């Protein structure tokens, strides 16, 4: 195995170089086109198309007796496109839905392909070997001529994507706007489908009809985690695809029997899982951390506001006991105690005997949050959105989200229209008379 690995990595063997270049092309074109296919929700049509290519391969061989790649791929293209047309026809003219139509074409065409393939195997005798590599793919079977075909196809695909990039982008993100610009969504969709066909053909020999769709889907979905911009996503997806191709081929070269397609798919899946976990912003870990941070801020701010509410009732005290805070917050005492200690470590609070007092940092944030809460309550009430006894809950949720700019705007509204002094915003439940007089009639 080590020998195999070294031989592969040294690139001394021309055949290895072919295979490597080929799998790079397959992965990269799959990733490139896959971005558009996935965003346009054509990923499973790609799967049906790939399965539908199998009878074409077998028929091309039966009719011509040749195993040259261009001839087999021509047959594959014809039957694949025919399969896509059948999906179109069935969904347009009958009540069968797209999902069933895709499943029907996928399985029936593939079944017919299997019938032809097994027939060729049993009748054709020794001459049959080679066609079954189209099932799961065999990268090692690629030769120089095949690579020429694949390179030409890949070049067409890349050129087309570069040339029609803007059209595809518009089609994906805003088909309505796209057609008002005078473009035909239909024609662009057909073009995209055509490129998907070509992409499938590039990988058919090395990955196989069963799993080639994964090379369209998985790298693109993995790339989606890394960026909100189409351009970046396309590049990342192409890179993931190319890397899956190369690494997959390398792994499958370590042992003689391992088919290339499944390994490439597993490598791409690995990229997907890693991306989903660690990608910044959209990745799971980053989302978990963000949520945890929000939850912590929320409970900290509740703690601080509870202190202010207590301080308003008891203007003499400068510190309040855990149990008093717990009653005010409606929490268990243990939770208040835990949070108090944590906030003390972070410099918000300080322990005074059996209770807590605020440090400058806690005082500033507490004041801000009390103000946010009350301004929002007043605003909801004043704008007649809610009654006085219903405003506390929404304010509880919103107080953490209000920015200083919004606060300022609320102050302006309330002081200009209601005569409320922003410096003296009191608890709404104690000042209802103010509104009654103010005429909310």
């Amino acid at each position, binding site marked *: 195995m080590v020998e195999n690995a070294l031989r592969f990595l040294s690139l001394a063997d021309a055949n290895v170089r072919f295979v490597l270049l080929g799998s790079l092309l397959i992965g990269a074109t799959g990733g490139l086109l896959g971005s558009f296919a996935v965003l346009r929700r054509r990923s499973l049509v790609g799967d049906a198309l790939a399965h539908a290519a199998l009878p074409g391969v077998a028929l091309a061989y039966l009719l011509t007796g040749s195993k040259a790649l261009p001839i087999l791929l021509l047959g594959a293209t014809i039957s694949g496109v025919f399969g896509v047309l059948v999906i179109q026809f069935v969904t347009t003219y009958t009540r069968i839905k797209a999902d*069933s139509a895709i499943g029907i074409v996928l399985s029936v065409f*593939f079944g017919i392909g299997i019938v032809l393939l097994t027939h060729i195997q049993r009748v054709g005798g020794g001459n049959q070997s080679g066609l079954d590599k189209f099932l799961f793919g065999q990268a090692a079977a690629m030769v120089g001529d095949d690579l020429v075909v694949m390179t030409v196809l890949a070049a067409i695909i890349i050129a087309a994507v570069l040339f029609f990039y803007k059209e595809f982008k518009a089609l994906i993100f805003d088909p309505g706007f796209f057609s008002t610009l005078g473009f035909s969504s239909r024609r662009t969709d057909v073009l995209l489908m055509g490129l998907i066909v070509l992409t499938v053909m590039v990988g058919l020999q090395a990955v196989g009809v069963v799993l080639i769709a994964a090379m369209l889907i998985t790298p693109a979905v993995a790339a989606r985690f890394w960026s909100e911009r189409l351009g970046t996503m396309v590049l990342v997806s192409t890179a993931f695809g190319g890397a899956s191709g190369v690494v997959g081929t390398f792994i499958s070269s370590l042992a003689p029997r391992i088919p290339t397609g499944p390994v490439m798919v597993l490598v791409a899946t690995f990229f997907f899982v890693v991306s989903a976990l660690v990608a910044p912003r959209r990745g799971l870990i980053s989302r978990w951390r963000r949520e945890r941070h929000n939850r912590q801020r929320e409970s900290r701010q509740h703690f601080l506001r509870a202190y202010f509410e207590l301080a308003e009732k008891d203007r003499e005290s400068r510190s309040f006991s855990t149990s008093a805070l717990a009653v005010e917050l409606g929490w268990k005492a243990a939770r208040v105690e835990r949070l108090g200690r944590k906030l003390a470590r972070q410099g918000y609070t300080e322990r005074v005997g059996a209770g807590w007092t605020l440090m400058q940092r806690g005082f500033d944030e507490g004041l801000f949050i009390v103000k946010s809460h009350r301004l929002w309550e007043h605003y909801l009430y004043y704008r007649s959105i809610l009654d006085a006894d219903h405003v506390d809950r929404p304010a509880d949720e919103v107080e953490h989200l209000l920015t200083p700019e919004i606060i300022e705007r609320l102050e302006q509204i309330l002081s200009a229209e209601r005569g409320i002094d922003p410096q003296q915003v009191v608890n709404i439940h104690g000042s209802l008379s103010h509104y009654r007089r103010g005429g909310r009639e």
Partner: protein
Amino acid sequence: MIAIDGAFWIVLTGALATGSCALLGTFLVLRKMSLLGDALSHAVLPGIAIAFLFADSRAIVPMFVGAAICGLVTTLLVETFHRKWNVQEDASIGIVFTALFALGVVIITVFAGQVDLDQECVLYGEIAYTPWDLLILGDSEYGPRPVWILSGVFLLDLFFVLFFYKELKIASFDPAMAVAVGINATLMHYLLMGAVSLTTVAAFESVGAILVVAMLIVPGATAYLWSDKLHVILVLSVSFGFVSALGGYWMASLWDSSIAGAMVAVVGAIFFLSLLISPNQGVVARLWQRVVFSLQVAQDHMLLALVRRSEVEEQYRFSRDELMEMASVWRGVAVLALRRLERRALVERYNDRFHLAAAGRQEALRLLRNHRLWEAYLSGLGLPEDHVHDPADAVEHFIGRELAAELDAEVEVQTDPQGKQIPPSE
């Protein structure tokens, strides 16, 4: 004693597998979950492979456990990727089943020595070896093992569908209604997916992934082309499954090839045939409806042309070509339309020129009344004068006596927007 030969067992195995799949698959098709069925039937592979690896013989229990876990994992992963990880649903199905299937294939090839499965068999099964895969208890043989397994699964599926028929029906056609009447839709979903996983595993070994996918989706979808009634759809679906099992065996022995593949080809043929000839959804029926309809429209337009001209020039007779032009349809249809008008004695011919017969005049006036009533009605709604003719042209054929009376009451005028008289009702 009757000699039971291999062919019988193979067809029976195929029929039981296709029948079970067709029964449950119908619900997948109706619930727009076909692709989850597709995914499941690929994704059970690693479960089966791992079970083979550890149990080292084809023990039934580990195989079912392994595959059931895989089925559950698939459903859960698809849900998680879609809902929690914000991946589109189709892409998340695509990722999950390709990854699991790839994993299964790799396990099979890497441990080829220990796993009694090969790549081809994964795709199209080993149904041909069924007669030799005997169930042996003690010293006696009890017929092929797959037949026993599949019979059990088939009965279980049948029982499941019969027992939960009402619940499945409501949950499939109207999920909101199902919740409203207190049916636990989530439970039904997981029960159905569980049954599908079980069936998939049982069928997988004999007939391979492809036959399972095909039989889950194609018979149900085909039956859906033929009927609107759930019980009819189910019976048809299972029958299509049986027929394809029999036909597939026959085809494979006639034209030496994979039996499972041939069964798929036959069910595919049944589908395409239905696509052509089904009474409501079929291509032929639709084309026929279009021909009949355009024939009707052509006749109506000819009558209208005749009666409009007669308002201006009582004695005018149309030549054949003039009438054809008025019909504004494909020429072949126009020829037929004119012939039908003559046969129905609505028009009469005099010196190869045509005029309305008495009955024809009555029919033509009815159409003209419809047309002008609709124009007047649209104009009353505020449509400009030059925008009312084309819609009226399209609608005039469908206005019955009652609707005409209602329109008449509505429009309150005696003329159409161009000031032409609306003919009174006869």
